[in-house]
């Protein structure tokens, strides 16, 4: 059975329709990438799954419908979002930013110590204000904060945006650990190479629709660029 299933998902911003009938599934423990150009609806889709954007259609998580639930209830069910732009709490220290992620957590493998072990460079900066860190370190805090809730599914929005390639590599390097601790991962990514390298399956979004989906190894380069840019 799939961990997450979205069927015929639509979303609007006022009169503007951002998503047109998205069908999407994630199996337990799977890493799924969503690629697509700016404005393709990737972020809206993740925000819709997390309950931050109102959607129509259906979302089932762990066998239960969640699309009518408020975001804080969805979060407690084990669906965590690392938002675009990291969105750390500026008044909180690094450690507090991490800890608050675990305030309403169920039992699971993640704790402050485990997260600090996953990102050792946060350890010595844990008393610093979150905004004093470099972009890459802030991204680590954002991921750690989401992990603190012991999620079954981790949604990551634009992890590599604005970060140096070596930093991006460091961040993707923790995926196997996250997976080994029982979470499936969905990454929204503009860096296609990074996305294809990390993912078991990939969806390409174009103008609010799924234009292509499959296993990275089975998809040709041309096929992907066509689905990405809408070139024919």
């Amino acid at each position, binding site marked *: 059975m799939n961990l997450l299933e979205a069927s015929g998902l639509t979303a609007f911003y006022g009169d503007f329709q951002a998503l047109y009938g998205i069908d999407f599934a994630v199996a337990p423990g799977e890493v799924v990438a969503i690629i697509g150009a700016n404005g393709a609806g990737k972020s809206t889709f993740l925000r819709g799954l*997390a*309950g*931050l954007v109102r959607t129509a259609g259906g979302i089932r998580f762990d066998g239960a419908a969640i699309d009518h639930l*408020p*975001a*804080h209830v969805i*979060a*407690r069910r084990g669906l*965590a*979002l690392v*938002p675009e732009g990291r*969105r750390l*709490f*500026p*008044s*909180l220290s690094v450690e*507090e930013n991490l*800890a*608050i*992620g675990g*305030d*309403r*957590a169920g039992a699971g493998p993640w704790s402050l110590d485990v997260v600090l072990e996953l990102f050792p460079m946060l350890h010595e900066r844990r008393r610093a204000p979150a*905004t004093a860190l470099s972009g890459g370190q802030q991204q680590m805090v954002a991921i750690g*904060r*989401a992990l603190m*809730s012991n999620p079954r599914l981790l949604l990551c929005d634009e992890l590599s945006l604005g970060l140096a390639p070596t930093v991006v590599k460091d961040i993707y390097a923790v995926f196997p650990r996250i997976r080994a601790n029982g979470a499936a991962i969905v990454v929204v990514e503009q860096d296609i190479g990074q996305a294809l390298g990390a993912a078991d399956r990939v969806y390409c979004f174009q103008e609010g629709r799924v234009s292509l989906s499959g296993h990275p190894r089975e998809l040709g380069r041309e096929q992907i660029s066509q689905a990405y840019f809408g070139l024919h």
Partner: protein
Amino acid sequence: MINLVDTLLQGSLLGGRYALMALGLSLAFGIMRLVNIAHGDFIVLAAYLALVTVQALGLHPLAALLIVVPILALLGYAVQRGLLNRAVARDIMPALLITFGLSVIIQNGLLEVFSADSRRLQAGNLSSIGLSLGEGVSIGWFPLMTLLIAALVIAGLEQFLRRTRLGRAFRAVSDDPEIVQLMGYDPHHIYALAMAVAFATVGIAGVLFGIGTIFDPALGPPQLLFAFEAVIIGGLGSLWGTLAGAMVLGVAQAIGFRVDPGWGILFGHVAFLVILAVRPQGLFPRTRDA
């Protein structure tokens, strides 16, 4: 010289009263960016509540705190959850209008029930005894106690905001109410709890206000004004700043009273305007907003 010392002392002590009144306003603004126009009326309402409690149970007014503070906290939760949550987050204007409406309702409700007669909470000789600090300088026990309570409440709130889980959630929701939901917190509940804490301080302020001065149903708006000035002078969102702002206001008023008994309030307003013109961010603004 003695006059100056005495004036500064009396002004600072007066600041304790204003600080206590301003705390709830400062908290609500710091956490929710919400300005409660009915703040002063809730202070007066708390004083009347204490009056009823004292009369019904024969308690000392200070003991009425044990009843008034929890009731105000519950009221704060209900007002936020039932009314203000619908308005907050969108814009500052709807909350202003709603609380303005509450202000009118509370004043008229109190007038209807208690009439326009002035009242006072009788606290024996607590409000009249003083402490002599040498020639010509003496301070009242009650204003001193009020200032100490204000400082204690602020210290307690600071520790609460810094060290507890709920305090952390208050700071986080103030930073980013959307992302707090991803942490499993319902921002509406957190806002209502924050208002409950703010109203608890209103309860304390109201009881001490009722002991310190005679009051009537129309006294809410001036208290709001003093509280507002203290918050702005001190810098938005900083509790110790609010205490400092309240003391500046108190000292300015005390100097005014010394110059001419009719000028005290005016001097307070002038000090407020001067600081607003010279240092609009206040004396101690929260660093991240600066």
